[in-house]
């Protein structure tokens, strides 16, 4: 006979499995190397599981996942010693770990994208990730905890920053 906890865990794993792309995207944007990416991936999963009891199905599971994943990524703290070792750029890391590396043109585009987004602070990264993933300003505002108007203002500023970086 299945216990309540094992049913919960099975449900949780099924839902997370369907939306695991969210966690991977957050990890790719917030981490510089594979070790850090693995640690953050695990950390997000642990936090999702620990707080799963708070998910009541009112919001979409993916929005709830974004909240947890972005909170963990923003609050993530690594000791300076470890951080000093992280000199690889995002695209180099991506090429190293990809079993099937993207085509050269795509790789170049990824590099430019990572470099442009990489210059943003952690909070702006969260907003741009949500925006690029097709969330409406209202949803972004709810996840970040700011007004829809301010999301618009923030996005305009971020676009200027990104545009400058992309042109250069």
């Amino acid at each position, binding site marked *: 006979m299945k216990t309540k906890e094992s049913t919960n*865990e099975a449900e*949780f*794993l*099924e839902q997370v*499995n369907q939306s*695991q*792309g969210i966690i*991977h*995207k957050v*990890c*790719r944007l917030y981490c510089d190397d594979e070790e850090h990416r693995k*640690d953050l*991936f*695990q*950390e997000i*999963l*642990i*936090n*999702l*599981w*620990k*707080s799963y009891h*708070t998910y009541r199905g009112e919001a979409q599971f993916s929005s*709830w996942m974004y*909240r*947890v994943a972005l*909170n*963990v990524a*923003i*609050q*993530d*703290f690594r000791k300076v010693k470890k951080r000093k070792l992280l000199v690889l750029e995002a695209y180099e890391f991506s090429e190293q770990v*990809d079993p*099937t590396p*993207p085509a050269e043109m795509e790789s170049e*585009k*990824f590099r*430019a*994208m990572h470099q*442009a987004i990489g210059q943003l*602070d*952690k*909070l702006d990264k*969260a907003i741009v990730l949500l925006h*690029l*993933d097709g969330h409406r300003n209202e949803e972004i505002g*709810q*996840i*970040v*905890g*700011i*007004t829809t*108007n*301010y999301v618009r*203002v923030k996005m305009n500023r971020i*676009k200027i920053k*990104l*545009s400058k970086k*992309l*042109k250069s």
Partner: protein
Amino acid sequence: MELLELQATWQLFNDNVIKNDFVEPTIIGNSIHQKSKSEISSIKRSMHYKFIIGTVTMLIGLGMTAAMYFAPDFNPLSNFLSHSESLGFYIIITLALGAMIAVNHRAYKQIKQLNESVSNLKQGLSNFTRSMRKAMNFNIYSDALMSPVFITWIYYTYAFKNQAIGWDVRSLVLFVLPVAIGLFSYYFQRYAQHLKFGRYVSRLEGYLQSLEENSEKV
């Protein structure tokens, strides 16, 4: 690359993530039961150990105080201290540990709650930075409290082995020592905590401030 192209690249990036990063459900299942490696979790674990060790020590201290109070012949520190001195030692240690445990418990509870709740990023930042400040303060004040107590008692044990407290340099040192060690521990720990977490917490507080200030302006 222009902004519109960025959106298109994001789609390619999505495909790339699905193709290369997706893991088996069993890996996800195993990951959720593993020990967290985050700094906040290690702070929580260390607070948990401190709480257990502190509680056990406080209970021993409390037991010793009670035993010494009800049995005047009982003095486990008879080699160094008289009966009343030992009683004073145990009372001070028990009270200091009690205060430390209470502060520890409050900070620990807040951090535990933080791990198990989901809020928006602004609220999350606010709760997190508050918890971190509490944990840092706990480390600062527990050290500033416990170090003078222990060191002053050690000094007292040796300096007043065959001599009572009077108007002399030794007695003066007895009163100056806890203040000096307390201040030194406080500033040293404050510096150490700032070095370890200060910049990181300040940066998060900066994010929070930018969200709060600008939300008001809009």
